[in-house]
């Protein structure tokens, strides 16, 4: 095969002692992207499952594609609605594409650059972890986020969120959430409020007078009981489910996210236990709040909570991150449930902050090892007890 011959031909300088050895990690990343290596087993397990990390993580990316495609269209849709212009489907898609592409490029160039540099420094192969983070970061950004912020957030996420812990597989917090949280706390004016969610609104040129870009959650936090779009038309539950509402690029469409969830669950890459229990936890908290509804936000039907903001997105793509989630099967139930439960709790009862999912997941990331600890402790106790019974 000629491509193989080409790769073999240009490889020698990258190997140990070669002139380009400092770029070995990058070269290997490309080589293993093209070819599954010819490496054979050496231990006593002579055969290996055909699955590998690349395949698993690429599937997570594929699962995000529906949310991404919808986000591209939705960005264009809201932009033209705010301008009061009639635009065709492809015009909206093209606008959204041009708006989102640079965010992706910045995320991947910056993130992968750091990853490859660290891999080279540690003398390891580049792990595929950033494939997923690099896609998650743009999807949780508002469409109008300045590119330099994306770059800064990515650096922060990869270096502080991941590499200081030892890289892929060692991190405590989900890197994409670290990026989002970093921006939220460092640059709140660009990451919250009524304007950032719709492309062009912060700039303001050509926007219809009085057009509001407030998200539904933003409106709910004001304790209004009916939600309207920028033109003053009422939102239906169906709008919330389809996702034709303002919000972060990939977060709005529960339908697209559910398609992604189906891909994750069918391929076995994402934990259905976590996804299911996050929704269950959110529903339970929603029902509890409904029971004690003293204001309009608490009275918001629990199923609408599950459709709004980043709830579904967080449940499907972020809570399921195997590195930062609970690692025991029993722990996954508890972990997911608490995320859903806390997300709605924070969302409703903390007036300063209507989007609780991000904080709930980060908080449970921190507690996941504790959950696992207790599950494993129970296993240890069982073993000790058994020993005693036999000893007496």
């Amino acid at each position, binding site marked *: 095969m000629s491509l193989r011959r080409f790769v073999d031909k240009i490889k020698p300088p990258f190997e140990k002692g070669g002139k380009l050895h400092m770029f070995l990690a990058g070269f290997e990343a490309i080589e293993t992207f093209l070819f599954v290596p010819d490496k054979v087993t050496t231990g006593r397990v*002579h055969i290996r499952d*055909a*699955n590998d990390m*690349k395949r698993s993580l690429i*599937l997570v990316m594929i699962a995000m594609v529906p949310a991404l495609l919808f986000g591209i269209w939705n960005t264009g849709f809201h932009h033209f609605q705010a301008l009061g212009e009639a635009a065709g489907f492809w015009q909206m898609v093209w606008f959204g594409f041009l708006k989102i592409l640079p965010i992706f490029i910045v995320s991947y160039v910056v993130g992968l650059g750091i990853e490859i540099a660290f891999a080279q420094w540690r003398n390891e192969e580049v792990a595929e972890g950033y494939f997923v983070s690099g896609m998650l970061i743009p999807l949780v950004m508002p469409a109008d986020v300045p590119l330099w912020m994306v770059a800064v957030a990515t650096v922060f996420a990869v270096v502080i969120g991941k590499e200081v812990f030892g*890289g892929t597989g060692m991190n405590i917090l989900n890197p994409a959430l670290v990026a989002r949280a970093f921006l939220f706390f460092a640059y709140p004016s660009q990451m919250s409020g009524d304007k950032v969610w719709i492309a062009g609104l912060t700039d303001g040129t050509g926007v219809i007078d009085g057009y509001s870009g407030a998200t539904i959650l933003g409106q709910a936090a004001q304790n209004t009981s009916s939600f309207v779009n920028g033109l003053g038309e009422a939102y239906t539950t169906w709008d919330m489910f389809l996702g034709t509402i303002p919000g972060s690029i990939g977060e709005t469409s529960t339908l697209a996210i559910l398609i992604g969830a189906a891909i994750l669950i069918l391929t076995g890459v994402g934990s259905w236990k976590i996804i299911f229990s996050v929704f269950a936890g959110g529903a339970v908290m929603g029902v509890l709040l409904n029971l004690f509804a003293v204001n309009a936000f608490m009275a918001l039907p629990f199923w609408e909570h599950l459709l709004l903001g980043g709830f579904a997105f967080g449940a499907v793509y972020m809570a399921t991150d195997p590195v930062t989630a609970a690692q025991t099967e029993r722990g996954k139930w508890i972990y997911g449930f608490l995320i859903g439960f806390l997300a709605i709790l924070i969302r409703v009862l903390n007036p300063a902050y209507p989007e609780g999912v991000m904080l709930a997941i980060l908080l449970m990331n921190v507690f996941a090892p504790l959950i696992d600890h207790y599950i494993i402790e129970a296993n240890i106790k069982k073993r000790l007890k058994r*020993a005693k019974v*036999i000893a007496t």
Partner: protein
Amino acid sequence: MAEVIKIKKGLDIRMNGQAELIYVKAPRARTYAIKPGDWHGLTPKIIPKLCDEVKVGTPIFYDKYHPEIKFTSPVSGILSSINRGERRRIIEVVLEDDGKDTAETFMQGDPSEMKREQIVENLLNSGLWPLIRRRPYTVIAKTDEVPKSIFISAFDTAPLAPDFDFLLKDSEADFQWGVNALRRLTEGKVHLNLDGRYPSVRTLSDIKGVEVNRFSGPHPAGNVGIQIHKLDPINKGEVIWVVQPQDVIAIGRLFKTGKYDPSVVVALTGARVEKPQYYRTIRGTEVAPILENQLKEGDNRVISGNVLQGKQIDAEKGYVGCFDSQVTVIREGNYHELFGWILPGFKKMSVARSFASRWLTPRRKFDMDTNYHGGKRPFVMTGEYEKVLPMDIYPMQLLKAILVNDIDKMEQLGIYELDEEDLALCEFVCTSKTPVTKILRDGLKALRKEMEE
């Protein structure tokens, strides 16, 4: 009849090359070998000099730290060479066969009427003692300890494993003698574990003096470690002995005839074999006579044992391991595959549901090769190991405890219950391509050093 214990977790790896139920008498090999590496932590001291004459049952070497534990020759002839590896470690002690089968004689008689010490002595002298191994650690049993029970797993669920009912056919009487001897070695039970998937008319169900248990389910249901876990788990400080069925027969024949009978049956399996079948041969045989005219053209790997726990051997100069009832030949996977990680995978064996074969042809058998299918990565995916290990153990957490050498945690998480073969499937399915079984063995070594020295 005892209930069937159903094992739910695990994985049957479906491969081409199952041995046909035909016995062939293997052509007599020129040389036979004992490989000290078949026993963990053994330091051999050679007794005869090169070219010394030996008989069947003549001691060849002994354990440096337990001189009473001897290893004896399976054939008569001369000690022809000692093959060494790195740091002069002895790899093989090779014996050249003279074809006369002259044999040493040992004590003969019904073991049910013997004292425990007499049985132990007879096994030590004949060189059959090393066939009894102890858990934890899977090392040679100590002569001065009494195990809480003895386990015999009379079936194997590993890929392409030989059919033990076929293997043991017509040896029931010898097996009974062997069991009689083993019964005197423990105050507890002797567990004989049979395949619960078959009706009870099979060979070994009439053996007396044992607790017959039946297991059904995917691999590793046939692993003795899983069976111990279900019936009589090992706690700290406890010892269980395990013996393989063919070795029980050898023990039985020793007492019946007063001679060491080294004959065994070995299944030749694998997709790279022309005609997979069973061979009657002698323990430690050269593999070449068995492989003659049997290998397909190409780059093959010959494995003494199964694909999950066997050892790679040389097709021309290799010897079958002492505990192996199987030789497997598969293709070397030293090829590059363009975009292999994303292709649908119609012909790939995987437990991951991301391969088309998993959906379209779930019963398909595969020609597995030795390709690594990726590179080593940090632990990322979770819950994979738990699906293939039918034990109440957290393998990933245990591996991490071993990697940081936390002895207490290893004990608490149940390392005493495990052997490499029990975690071999975990290594097979691992997305991160972690060398699971090597890590476990390192942990067992560290623990044994800490506890017993």
